[in-house]
């Protein structure tokens, strides 16, 4: 008797046998776990394991098909986001959800304005309240400031402020550090710790294991919509055992062999490239069959530099030599049709894919020349053949090539992006953040794919903020900081030594 009393008091949130069925898909299958008061409870699992669906159920966006949610030991129906907020559940979803035309105060106190339609809005009171909430998380902003001009890290903090503004006891954070810089991520982690001290329970989703080990108290692993075993205190886990639980088999980040390119020919050379935005000249060489890594923090100017090379934002001065001849890339169209350079954007959903179209149409649109008949009409048979070829070569997992790209996991979407790049039969491929938001297992597949392409003679530039990925995969690393190339390192494929060298170059 005493024991059960203690138990129900101890847990702030209890999930019992939560099942969610979407038309045709069982996203969650009898998931159960409990969250204690004042703990950081990490929820880990591969992409598509069902973590975000779970967050959406706890925050009232979706209604579970089966199962119960209990808050403070009491059963509760969370069928609208509003109800969840009133029940003390604050949420920061994976995508940014701020009202851009509103001020900081209004965004933080948005729940005071939403809900019922009648009633007045007291802006001064909202500013005062927003200030208080921001103090709690050490965020120093003018409540009257518009949110448009803030950095993504600050915006993320505003979302957290909004989530705790209703005196939330439970805070759900879905990949909060995915798109913010390292310093901002550290501030965020500090904030999470502080909120835990205040007694708030936090459910924390992240793909970054080091974050999990630095802040979580306990971990629940979700795989294929089911929870794998009971919740485990963080002390009982190591990197390897956690990854093993997530993917179901033992796997570590594979390091490929060291290769020697001293004899290889230079396929592309940039000499003192500058643009209107970036006045610091940048130079580098890329050799045939080589994988060149561009490391740097978010905002270090890597993507911008890539866009200058491929002509999206053409460079202002400097020389670009391709196969030893001077090249003038004035548009991306020229980059891939004339100079055989292709670029795979870090922004899959917006810049890489037509989400509502099928896989075949996504591939076909970039290979129009190949799939058009002599009369100038599109041959769907040719399109299907071409897509099937890539599906097989790249190991794209899907029911058929006619399904919408939107329905696929991040990893498979990334493979389609690469397939689209390959359609232009490039000599040089620039891949921007190839595995961002992609689970551990598919990450390995993508690395293997990139490596195989380089073995076939393609030269590849991999832009990545994931140091482990670069050290395992690439042959040479350029380190970027503040729009400048700070150093060039031969990759020894030894993580400990390389990471120290890279950090040394950045902090120099």
């Amino acid at each position, binding site marked *: 008797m005493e024991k059960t009393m203690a138990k129900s008091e101890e847990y702030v949130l209890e999930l019992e046998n939560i099942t969610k069925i979407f038309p045709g898909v069982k996203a969650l299958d009898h998931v159960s776990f409990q969250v204690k008061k004042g703990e950081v409870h990490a929820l880990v699992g591969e992409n598509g394991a069902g973590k975000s669906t779970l967050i959406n159920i706890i925050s009232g966006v979706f209604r579970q098909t089966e199962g119960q949610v209990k808050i403070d030991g009491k059963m509760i129906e969370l069928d609208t986001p509003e109800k969840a907020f009133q029940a003390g559940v604050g949420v920061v979803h994976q995508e940014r959800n701020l009202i851009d035309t509103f001020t900081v105060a209004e965004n933080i106190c948005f729940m005071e304005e*939403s809900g019922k339609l009648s009633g007045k*809005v007291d802006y001064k009171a909202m500013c005062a309240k927003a200030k208080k909430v921001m103090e709690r998380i050490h965020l120093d902003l003018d409540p009257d400031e518009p949110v448009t001009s803030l950095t993504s890290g600050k915006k993320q903090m505003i979302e957290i402020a909004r989530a705790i503004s209703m005196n939330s006891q439970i805070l759900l954070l879905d990949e909060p550090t995915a798109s913010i810089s390292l310093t901002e991520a550290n501030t965020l982690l500090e904030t999470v710790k502080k909120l835990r001290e205040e007694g708030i329970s936090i459910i924390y989703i992240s793909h970054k294991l080091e974050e999990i080990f630095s802040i979580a108290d306990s971990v629940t692993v979700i795989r294929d919509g089911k929870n794998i075993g009971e919740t485990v205190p963080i002390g009982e886990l190591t990197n390897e055992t956690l990854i093993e639980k997530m993917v179901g088999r033992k796997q570590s980040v594979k390091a490929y062999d060291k290769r020697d390119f001293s004899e290889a020919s230079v396929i592309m050379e940039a000499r003192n490239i500058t643009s209107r935005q970036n006045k610091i000249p940048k130079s580098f060489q890329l050799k045939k069959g080589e994988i060149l890594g561009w490391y740097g923090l978010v905002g270090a100017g890597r993507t911008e530099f890539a866009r200058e090379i491929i002509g999206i934002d053409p460079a202002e001065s400097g020389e670009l030599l391709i196969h030893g001849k001077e090249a003038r890339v004035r548009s991306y169209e020229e980059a891939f049709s004339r100079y055989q350079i292709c670029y795979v954007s870090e922004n899959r959903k917006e810049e890489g894919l037509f989400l509502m179209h099928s896989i075949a149409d996504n591939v076909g649109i970039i290979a129009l020349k190949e799939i058009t008949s002599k009369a100038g009409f599109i041959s769907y048979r040719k399109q299907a053949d071409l897509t099937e070829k890539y599906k097989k070569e790249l190991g794209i997992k899907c029911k058929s090539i006619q399904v919408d790209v939107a329905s696929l996991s991040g990893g498979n979407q990334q493979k389609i992006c690469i397939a689209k790049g390959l359609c232009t039969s490039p000599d040089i491929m620039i891949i921007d953040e190839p595995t961002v938001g992609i689970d551990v297992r598919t990450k390995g597949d993508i690395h293997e794919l990139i490596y195989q392409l380089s073995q076939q003679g393609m030269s590849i530039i991999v832009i990545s903020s994931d140091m482990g990925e670069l050290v395992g995969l690439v042959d040479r690393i350029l380190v970027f900081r503040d729009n400048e190339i700070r150093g060039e390192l031969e990759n020894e494929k030894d993580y400990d030594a390389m990471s120290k060298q890279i950090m040394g170059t950045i902090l120099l």
Partner: protein
Amino acid sequence: MNNRIGFKKLTKMENFSVIVIIMLMILVMQFITGNYISLDNFSVLCKTLAIYTIIGVSQMINISCGGMNVSIGATGGLSAVIAAWLMYSHNCNIFLAFLAGVAVGILCGLLNGYLINRIGGVGVASFLITLATTSIFSSLVLIISNGRGIATVNSSFRAIGNTKLFGFLPSSAFFVLAVLIIIYWVYKKTRVGRQMLAFGANPKAAKLYGVDQLKILLSANVIASILASLAGLLLIMRVGSAQVDIGNDWMLSSFAAPLIGGTRQAGGKVNVFGVLLGAIVLTLISNALVFMGVDAYWQELVNGVVILVIMGLDQLRSVTGRNKE
């Protein structure tokens, strides 16, 4: 020195360029005609201005939450014809007839809002739905009035529209002022106003944080349609008959007035008093064309060009603004 800073502030004001354009237009007209700035002309302008402003505010509400309403004219026409018909054929009390006209607006708004929500929310959905309801409403106008309109409107009803305070300020000016103040207050101070703006700026985020799409679409469409009816009723008060073509030429102007006045085209940001300025520009253009004896057929062409120019300038401003950052 102080003066210069004051002037700089003035030029940074959102509607500075529109105000300058208005003043220039008035000066040019005064120069050409010699008697443009007069009380008589002022009260004539006020009446046209009233209609442009109210339909502009109506459209602004739809734009503010990310949609549009091409049925404003048809709604106004239907309200006007039904009110006139009740007074003419059924000897209905003018006050009740007025309320009936407004009620028609509410019904039209509810229908639009409900259907827009059903087929997906904003943007193209609102265009398609209101395009369809336009034909329904316009056709009802023809059915009710046997295709001929209602030739005479009750004289006391007409009197409301033709009363002038202090000899030059028409009654419609007060309607307009009331509408502007109320709508300004709604957007500034009420939950429903803020929710409309939030929904217009980011529908997904708004929904995730407790804004109900159906409620917002219904509110916006009902308020907007009430204003459309009001415009229709004001028009028949003034001209004294309810023609079947009332509202046919409102659509473009209803978009032009708020856009000239600084309302964000994509939703989420409004400038209520800016609509008045936009309406003044439209009124002055139509008035100038009349003064200069230009064929009325040119009116729409000029309006179209004005909208394109305004949108072009807007684009230019946002581009140069970004470069400065």
